[in-house]
């Protein structure tokens, strides 16, 4: 009996050696895959952008169209991120602090933009605001342009980035509970006072995290914006659309130069995200909790 249950010392050694080999093999293959699929292409963007030298790179960026695309992208980010911040806080507040009929429906609705293809999202707006859409006749009567104009691009971007702030805040606020807000209320604080003095300071880091994600997505959104934009040069072209335009015109250096701008923005986003994670412990605690449970 006991001979069966007690393993020999060599049995004890072998699995640990095997597991170490497995670990090394797994890490190695993960690194190889990562460099092939992520790092090399990323480097490729910059190599292509600087293919013809610094001068050409700078020159391809110094075009009126590129400036216009840059301005439009900045405008879209400047409108969609604050809108989503307000919406995200309101939705998270409602969902985590109150019980109401249709709460689960609201939680599901917030996730729709993540489930739906951005192209479909764009088409939905064309269907509503387009010339032959539901509101089209009314809009053209009043000389309002949504589709193939800036408002359409902003709307499509807001839709696509809808969930980012809310999805970051809801689990955080749920975990935090409403004790501190109740304490503030009993101490005589008004609703606004509670929000500015207690709620907002407590959620500022996850909020910023969600805003960074939303900003990065609104800069890079292609599908939904492509459908509603109409690709009018210098007017309704955002940076990603500009990249596509250059590319289709076989102007590869210019395409990659603009693409490298977007890549830089993405890298800045990642670094900001990491800084927030490290300085606040956000998301690291979650990982630890999952491990321990």
């Amino acid at each position, binding site marked *: 009996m006991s001979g069966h249950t007690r393993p020999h010392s060599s049995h004890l050694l072998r699995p640990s050696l095997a597991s170490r080999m497995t670990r090394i093999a797994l890490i190695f293959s993960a690194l190889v895959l990562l460099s092939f699929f992520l790092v090399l292409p990323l480097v490729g963007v910059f190599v292509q952008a600087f293919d013809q030298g610094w001068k050409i790179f700078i020159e391809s960026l110094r075009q009126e169209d590129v400036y216009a695309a840059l301005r439009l992208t900045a405008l879209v980010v400047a409108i969609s991120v604050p809108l989503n911040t307000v919406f995200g806080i309101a939705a998270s507040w409602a969902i985590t602090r109150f019980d109401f009929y249709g709460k689960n429906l609201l939680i599901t609705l917030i996730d729709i933009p993540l489930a739906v293809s951005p192209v479909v999202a764009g088409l939905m707006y064309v269907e509503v605001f387009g010339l032959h859409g539901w509101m089209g006749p009314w809009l053209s009567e009043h000389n309002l342009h949504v589709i193939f104009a800036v408002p359409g691009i902003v709307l499509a971007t807001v839709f696509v980035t809808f969930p980012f702030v809310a999805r970051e805040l809801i689990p955080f606020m749920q975990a935090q509970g409403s004790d501190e807000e*109740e304490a503030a209320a009993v*101490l005589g604080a008004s609703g606004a*006072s509670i929000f500015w003095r207690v709620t907002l300071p407590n959620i500022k880091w996850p909020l910023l995290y969600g805003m960074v994600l939303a900003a990065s997505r609104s800069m890079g959104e292609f599908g939904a914006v492509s459908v509603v934009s109409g690709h009018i040069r210098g007017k309704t072209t955002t940076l990603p659309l500009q990249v596509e335009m250059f590319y289709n015109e076989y102007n590869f250096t210019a395409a990659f130069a603009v693409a490298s701008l977007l890549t830089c923005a993405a890298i800045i986003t990642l670094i900001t995200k990491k800084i927030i994670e490290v300085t606040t412990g956000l998301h690291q605690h979650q990982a630890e909790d999952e491990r321990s449970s």
Partner: protein
Amino acid sequence: MSIEVKDVSKNYGSFQALQKISLTIQTGELVALLGPSGSGKTTLLRIIAGLETSDQGAILLHGAEATQRTASSRGIGFVFQHYALFRHMSIFENVAFGLRVQPRAIRLSRREIHARVEELLHLVQLDSYSRMFPDQLSGGQRQRVALARALAVRPKVLLLDEPFSALDAKVRKDLRNWLRRIHDELHVTTVLVTHDQEEALEVADRVAILNRGALEQIDSPQAIYDHPASPFVFNFLGNVNLFHGRLLADLTPQTGGTEQGDSSIGFVRPHELEISRTLPEDTRAVLVRVARIQAAGSLARIELSTPDGKEQFTAEIGQSELQLLALQAGEDVFITPRAIRYFDNAETKELLDQGAGI
């Protein structure tokens, strides 16, 4: 300020959290709401504070209708079980919060706020901690900060929701004595929610016992301990021995519903059991075997059981008596109850069916 609770009921779906609770708390009194978890005591406290709304009934503060008033306008101090300190504010700012959010017309000047906070931090013996943050303090210190914060706005009523239950036994004991001293100094009407009967009996002027959303009894600790109104109260306040038997002529049942000759169950506290080696001249004496002796502490606990092992008893005797008896595990002795209480049989049966820890 007095608190009046009138016929307050509250349901969560089909769960009846509170059923027509009525009680009055006098100005300057310290009342403990005592009950097991799920008895509705915290719900009642939150309804008094305005953090929860009742389905029916009314709350009167100092005789004035307060049921519809918001939590922030009731002028109440509230201490939470898990402290609920503002984690991004220093200890000083935590205590100052209630003073800073007051409407401009009645708000104190910066200097007055500073003086008030210093005074309160001194009261809770945390003078040198004002620049620290809540996560740098121990549980006991945090709860003292929470109390200082609640007292800063000079509330007429102080409500505490299981304030010491997250702390370890020693700190808990210190803090509850300290709470009583603060109460005696400030005379603020206080309601303390607890599930710890020792805490309630030791600290409160009166104890209200709740069970399954209903008020079982409210009285002074002494009266409640000596004259429990129901088997639930008796059982909840301490350990209990049960004596099964028939009521004899010389025993007068304490409450109605039990008639002479009925089979009945008597309740006896462990310290009310007399242990003797010879058969006493008492018809209630029972022959038992000593199972285990726990001699640590001021009182020794003796676990006993009938020779057939069907019934268990616990006796508590003084150390000197234990030495005199020289009890050994395994030997047979007699136990006689010095006092027995009887309750309505139906209630007793219900309690036993619930599997209460008897």
